[in-house]
């Protein structure tokens, strides 16, 4: 009897979560219908206009989609040379040793720092550096946002990569060492190829994080509605345009913001499912 009760409680709780997710998706779709109907789904995605003037209202998501992809992909590129060595340090060279435990807890600590704190650091420390280096007059833009994003996603990329690198069976590594291989060759030809698809999944997940990151990016990207064409351009991401404008939006503009939210939701959900699929394939 008690068992049955507990079981139905579990079912109810799990069902509620599903219902919440479904409800969220439903309300996103419901909120964005207006914009999609007005501009057309394809046009909405492929236009870069963002004109809120009454009578000339025209909204498109292209600037923000490109801003999002630009910052996230560049952040991913920046994070690889830091997260991969960290993963090798923790998962291979110093696996199980105190120094690796310490290093990985510090890296994990980075993941716990609130986004706004990264934003502040970027605003008051990184931005002046970029200004004084003469790269950019104001210090805002894709580069600034990407650097901070890269730091934010390092823990995600490195901790999961560490897992996969340390999962490489010891007997395979011993096999390589017994043939006279050096540490570096074992990593290059045995550990990395075997852990490869897991590391790939780790970076896809990190990319998913970078795509949706809002606060720090909003503070640093410059918030201009254009397609960024260089690292020193300012821009907006899908998340930052919503964060910037949702408070004063209504009607078609609000619907367009919700539509951008829906697109962002679909992109990150897609990215995460790819990563999950790759990981499931490895683990089974």
């Amino acid at each position, binding site marked *: 009897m008690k068992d049955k009760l507990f079981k139905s409680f579990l079912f109810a709780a799990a069902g509620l979560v599903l219902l919440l997710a479904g409800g969220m998706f439903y309300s996103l779709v419901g909120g964005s219908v207006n914009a999609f109907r007005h501009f057309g789904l394809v046009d909405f995605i492929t236009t870069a206009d963002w004109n809120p003037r009454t009578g000339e209202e025209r909204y498109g998501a292209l600037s923000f989609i490109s801003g999002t992809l630009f910052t996230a992909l560049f952040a991913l590129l920046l994070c690889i040379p830091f997260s991969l060595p960290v993963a090798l340090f923790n998962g291979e060279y110093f696996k199980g040793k105190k120094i690796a435990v310490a290093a990985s807890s510090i890296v994990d600590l980075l993941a716990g720092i609130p986004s706004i704190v990264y934003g502040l650091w970027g605003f008051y420390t990184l931005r002046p550096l970029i200004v004084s280096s003469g790269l950019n007059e104001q210090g805002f833009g894709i580069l600034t946002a990407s650097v901070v994003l890269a730091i934010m996603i390092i823990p995600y990329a490195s901790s999961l990569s560490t897992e996969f690198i340390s999962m490489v*069976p010891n*007997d*395979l*590594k*011993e*096999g*390589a*060492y*017994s*043939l*006279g*291989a*050096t540490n570096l*060759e*074992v990593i290059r*030809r*045995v550990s990395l*190829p*075997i852990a*490869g698809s897991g590391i790939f999944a780790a970076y896809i997940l990190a990319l998913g994080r970078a795509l949706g990151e809002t606060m720090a990016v909003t503070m640093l990207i410059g918030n201009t509605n254009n397609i960024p064409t260089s690292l020193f351009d300012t821009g907006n991401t899908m998340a930052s345009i919503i964060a910037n404008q949702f408070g004063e939006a209504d009607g078609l503009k609000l619907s367009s913001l919700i539509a951008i939210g829906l697109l962002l939701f679909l992109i990150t959900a897609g990215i995460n499912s790819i990563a999950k699929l790759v990981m499931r394939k490895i683990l089974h």
Partner: protein
Amino acid sequence: MNNLTGEYLLELKKVCVSYTPGKNAVNNVSADILPNTITAIMGPSGCGKSTLLRAINRMHELYPNIVTTGEILLKGKDVLKMNPSEVRRMAGMVFQRPNPFPTMSIYDNVIAGYGLNGIRLKKSEKDEIVETSLRNVALWDEVKDSMTKKGSFLSGGQQQRLCIARALALKPELLLMDEPTSALDPISTNRIEELLLELKEQFTIVIVTHNTSQAARISNYSMFMYLGDLVEYDTTKQMFTKPKDKRTEDYLTGVFG
């Protein structure tokens, strides 16, 4: 061991290995091994037989806190003073469980030792080494049409022969085998044993085995280890017919082990 004569390929002089300070897992082992022979190391679990084997190609250095002392001479050169990579190329190792590299093809597995040492070879040289090594382990005819398939595509016995070929490809002086048939079925075991008898013509083999009848079948010389000590070392014939030590006799007759 008084009937061992001639030039030794491997000389162990007072070899000790300890995992924790003050406690020897291998205790003062001295033994000389002739070329082109098979020497079996037997003994109950935990007697130090694998530990001794892994001291020869310095595998213990991959882990912290394991200390090897004494002298290990391979072709007269002190292994403990050589570059570990060089030692391991001279003394190939085959493990308990077949461990072909899963991301590499059969071909790449055989030639892996060269890549792992940063040695570049011409395609024709590679082809020749791969064919010779696979012929050496009687695997050539079975895999010559599926060279690009992954090593894990093979059966357990074939995988183990592939691993032997991988070790042989580097043309080692010595082949160290750590219970190479314990994960295999009787038919595969039989094939490997036949193979070792053929390989003896070209190589010198030291094999750790918990299977006394395997030792009797294939080895020329046998060592019996107990609690880290080398209790007895003699020709296999002598040891199996007239063991000198009571402990050897008890082990071989199944009193313990």
